[in-house]
């Protein structure tokens, strides 16, 4: 859900683009954080806790807490609350700690 009218603010949006979230095509605005576009599309679960697989969502919005880490264009642990959205991005829910340079995390 996006704000349609606001009494004080005007939102300067980038151009409308599309990306995929777990294989589904989703629309968003270029340059906004990936997590903002997902939230606007109704996606609230972004990751899962390591041991108990509890659902985790948006939390700090400043790239500090790791609750929003996802796989973006194949790169794991991308902080989607601060990573700008680009046309054609592949965003996926991450399983485990991810693999960087062929080396899986513990």
């Amino acid at each position, binding site marked *: 859900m996006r704000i349609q009218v606001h009494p004080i603010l005007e939102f300067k949006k980038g151009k409308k683009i599309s990306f995929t979230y777990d294989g589904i095509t989703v629309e968003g605005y270029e340059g906004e954080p990936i997590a903002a576009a997902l939230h606007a599309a109704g996606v609230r679960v972004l990751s899962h806790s390591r041991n108990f697989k509890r659902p985790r969502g948006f939390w700090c919005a*400043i790239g500090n807490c790791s609750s929003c880490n996802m796989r973006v264009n194949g790169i794991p642990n991308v902080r989607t609350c601060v990573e700008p959205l680009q046309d054609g991005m592949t965003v996926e829910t991450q399983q485990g700690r991810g693999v960087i340079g062929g080396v899986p995390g513990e």
Partner: protein
Amino acid sequence: MNKAEILVIGSGPAGLKASLSAADQGAGVTLVERDPFLGGQLVKQTHMFFGSKEQYASERGFKIAEKLTAAAEEHPGVRVLKGAAALGYYDDNVVTLELKGRVLPVSYDAMIMATGAQENTLMFPNCDLPGIYGAGAVQTLMNVYGVLPGKRVAMLGAGNIGVIVSYQLLQAGVEVPAIIEAAPEIGAYHVHASKVRRMGVPIYTSQTVVSAHGSDALEKIIMVELDDSWQPVPDTVRELDVDVLCIAVGLTPLTEILFQAGCEIAYIPELGGHVPRRSAVMETSVANIYIAGDVSGIEEASAAMVEGTIAGLTAAFNLGYGRDSYEQKIAAANLELDALRKGPTGEKIRTGLQNLKKTGEVRQ
């Protein structure tokens, strides 16, 4: 290696003012910001500021951010690096930045840390459910990106952030069924609190959230009344259906790089926890490292701007700039700070600063 005469980390109200005041004195400033825009938390503040003309009273926060951002970007003495996160401190006055996927070491003659703070969280069963967000995070989502956090949002915490964000939720068309405050009194300025109350939002004092429920995301919270010793009162439990709970229970200074640099740190609860020890003109215990804004103690943006001015003037002075005007400008800034910190709302910060001072003189 990249060289900065004065390196300013963070471009919120403190960092912007520090950059401008140092550059106005003739020093060369490099201003580093991890976001793709300048202004820090000012960019999402839709309310008007208090204070005096010097701190932009009666202007909305995001308008102040626009003014200061333009001033910094147009100032010939300020080089702005956006999208650059400070990673760590190294010996011999070097800080590394991450810029466009690369690591960039920068050496400095003086550094002003204006990194701000991060939101505190609160522990209760299921406090990690999606839908439970920091109040500042919700403010970013809503006021910077125009995305609604949910349909029915409860606020935990009736300090300034909790009450102001509640008002902003109403502005965005979101229902706010409750502001919940564990303390017996509302912490926010009464002008803000009475505004949300007039708009029909109840503020429940001496109450808290004991648990959250939902399958994949938040569906309801359980609230309880608290007695004089902050213990739950039996038979006062009630449920509230909400899809978002905002947590506004204070902030913690972002001091990691100052710890790394070996700055002496003191634990002062009134200032938000661990804060660097510092002189009256914002010098830390490590030579050539200065601080300003929330990293030096949690306070309002108006005070952060004045602290930024003091840190910028002092860093420039110690490098030989603005020798003639320094004393006069510092005296004026100190008068502004005294005015901002007077009265009952300034009591916490005054106590915190006194307690910090009791830890002894800061020697560089």
